[in-house]
């Protein structure tokens, strides 16, 4: 039976802040917009962002978008593209006001202006005093933004396909993106959504690591769709880890715990940071603390029956300090571990948090890939924004408050450019049966019957593999072994089977499709990390401990076809101001 088809002006995959901000701009201009989301839209991971949005509003202290730009370039360890960073920092200001007018309930200062708080890495006057730049709606900024954008989209009559899973992009014989094949989870029926423009805004892929702060939904779906459609992924080796996540679970234990006097101990009860950072001890930089923890575990000095974590000790601080100054940690420990951190140590391990890399785009959110005429040729009809994209404003390391900003500014930019694109390309391009063949083949992948391994076991092994071979401890031997293991695991996936072949609400099938995506983004991450022989930002190698601007100030591009690596230059020229040349990143 032929797969039913529906036509829209624009298809957006993902209903977080980036997707909804683009959708709102388009639907408000009377375009027919389809948003496909595998969960109910307000359950997207944007809801978990607590901190806020950076914008140089100068509501508290003097500020300037140019100072914000300097901080972002420096924070990126000079790998960020300076044209995109300038654009983001300038556009931050109207973007925040636009959200305010849309109804986001920002917290207020006494004078009625939007409340702003201080965050790490933000300065006044190009590296001077601390700036106060992060606009917040209490501790639920992401929630406030997501719900406001969702409500506004309902008003603008955006068409939501809730609980639909995007299988793959459809490109025609000229390589133009003309929509996607999606699956309705409730019925198990496929649907082709034809669109004049398609935006991938599907979020990150933290679930590829065993210990992560990311929700279960963050499985790199859009990134893997791009890979399978022949688009490379950029700078995937740059993944931000926090040293202290709850072991085996991933939730963040804020650095404030160590700031209050907490310290780490190994299985022998030793305060092991004394051996790694004799002066800074437990307050050494994140990568040093995280790598020290993993070294203790690798060398057999971990805690617990599996010796697979270390302990964060707070019990010497007293109940008064722990309960009153660290209430969030107290809640997490009580609910998830059944312990009071004022009485017992907390089992911790580094936790994966945020992807700096993703689908390569320009500052208009258009997907760009190497082709005949250069490394950044636009893929017609295809856009990407948010954590799944790499524009690249975060470079090798993201600053706090810049992730919500990224999704909002570039979601908005995508909407603006798509309006123009659709105006210039007013007709749907013909969809031929041949264009559908590759995506329909993938749909049938998990309908194979017979004996075979289950999905859950392979997924657990993948996540452990990525943590062991591409976590915070990176050297050539560890990662090369990881690549070989991942190739073998990829073969296992080919032979895995689903026991349940039913159609109605077969979430096991969705999890199998997610596993395919995780394997693809996992390989992109491992290959990119193996080949970058330097330490920069979040990519920290013990065998190449220094940044090497001469050889490595360039972006990585991983292609799925043949697991190939390629590179392209960093865009060091901003739009209207002087470049910030690379310097040592010292705070």
């Amino acid at each position, binding site marked *: 039976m032929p797969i039913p088809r529906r036509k829209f002006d624009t298809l957006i995959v993902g209903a977080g802040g980036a997707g909804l901000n683009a959708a709102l701009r388009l639907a408000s201009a009377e375009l027919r917009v389809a948003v496909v989301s595998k969960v109910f839209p307000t359950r997207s991971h944007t809801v978990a962002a607590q901190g806020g949005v950076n914008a140089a509003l100068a509501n508290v202290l003097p500020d300037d978008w140019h100072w914000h730009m300097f901080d972002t370039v420096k924070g990126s360890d000079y790998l960020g593209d300076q044209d995109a960073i300038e654009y983001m920092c300038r556009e931050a200001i109207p973007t925040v006001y636009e959200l305010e007018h849309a109804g986001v309930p920002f917290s207020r200062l006494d004078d009625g202006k939007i409340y702003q708080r201080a965050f790490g890495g933000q300065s006044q006057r190009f590296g001077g005093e601390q700036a106060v730049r992060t606009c917040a709606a209490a501790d639920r900024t992401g929630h406030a933004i997501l719900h406001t954008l969702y409500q506004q989209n309902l008003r603008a009559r955006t068409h939501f396909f809730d609980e639909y899973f995007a299988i793959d992009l459809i490109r025609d014989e000229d390589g133009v993106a003309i929509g996607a094949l999606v699956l309705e989870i409730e019925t198990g029926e496929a649907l082709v959504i034809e669109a004049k423009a398609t935006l991938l805004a599907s979020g990150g892929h933290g679930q590829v690591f065993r210990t992560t702060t990311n929700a279960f939904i963050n499985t790199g779906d859009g990134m893997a769709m791009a890979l399978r459609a022949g688009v490379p992924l950029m700078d995937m080796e740059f993944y931000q880890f926090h040293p202290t996540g709850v072991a085996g679970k991933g939730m963040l234990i804020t650095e404030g715990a160590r700031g209050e006097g907490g310290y780490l101990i190994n299985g022998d009860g030793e305060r092991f940071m004394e051996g790694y950072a004799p002066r800074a001890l437990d307050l050494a930089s994140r990568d040093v603390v995280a790598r020290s923890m993993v070294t203790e575990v690798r060398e057999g000095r971990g805690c617990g029956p599996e010796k697979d974590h270390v302990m964060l000790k707070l019990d010497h601080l007293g109940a008064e300090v722990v309960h009153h100054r660290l209430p969030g940690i107290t809640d997490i420990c009580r*609910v998830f571990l059944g312990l009071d951190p004022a009485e017992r140590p907390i089992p911790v391990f580094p936790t994966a948090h945020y992807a700096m890399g993703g689908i390569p785009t320009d500052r208009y959110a258009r997907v760009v890939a190497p082709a005949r005429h250069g490394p950044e040729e636009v893929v017609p009809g295809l856009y990407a924004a948010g954590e799944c994209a790499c524009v690249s404003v975060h470079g090798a390391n993201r600053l706090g408050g810049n992730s919500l900003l990224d999704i909002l500014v570039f979601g908005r930019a995508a909407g603006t450019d798509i309006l123009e694109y659709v105006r210039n390309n007013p007709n749907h391009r013909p969809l031929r049966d041949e264009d559908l063949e590759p995506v329909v083949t993938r749909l049938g992948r998990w309908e194979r019957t017979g004996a075979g391994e289950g999905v859950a076991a392979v997924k657990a092994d993948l996540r452990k593999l990525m943590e062991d071979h591409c976590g915070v401890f990176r050297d050539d031997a560890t990662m090369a072994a990881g690549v070989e293991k991942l190739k073998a695991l990829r073969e296992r996936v080919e032979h895995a089977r689903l026991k349940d072949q039913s159609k109605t609400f077969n979430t096991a099938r969705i999890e199998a499709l997610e596993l395919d995506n995780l394997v693809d983004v996992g390989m992109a991450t491992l290959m990119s990390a193996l080949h970058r022989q330097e330490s920069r930002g979040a990519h920290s190698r013990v065998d190449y401990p220094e940044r090497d601007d001469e050889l490595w100030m360039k972006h990585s591009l991983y292609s799925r076809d043949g697991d190939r690596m390629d590179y392209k230059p960093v865009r060091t020229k901003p739009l209207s101001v002087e470049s910030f040349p690379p310097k040592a990143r010292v705070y």
Partner: protein
Amino acid sequence: MSQPTDADQAPRAATADAELSRVGWQCRRGMLELDLLLSQFLTTGFARLDAAGRADFLRLLGYPDQIIHSWLMGREPPADAELRRLVTQIWAATAKHPGDAA
């Protein structure tokens, strides 16, 4: 009245599985803390709920993530008694004991 046959049972079992999957998918949220607590409760506690309890659980899943988060992390209790009882049941079913922490 005749006994149900295997043929009768099969579709009912399939329907029950699909229903559980449907509820399971509603437990997929935007926050890891909720994913962990709700999915674990689905495995260890949901089957023991009576029809009213299950209806309450579905009602709880209908609330925004931030609200459920503040309930389940114990920052504030739900306003109605049924949901307060359910939150306690989720804690009981997912409770950890010191020592089996990780």
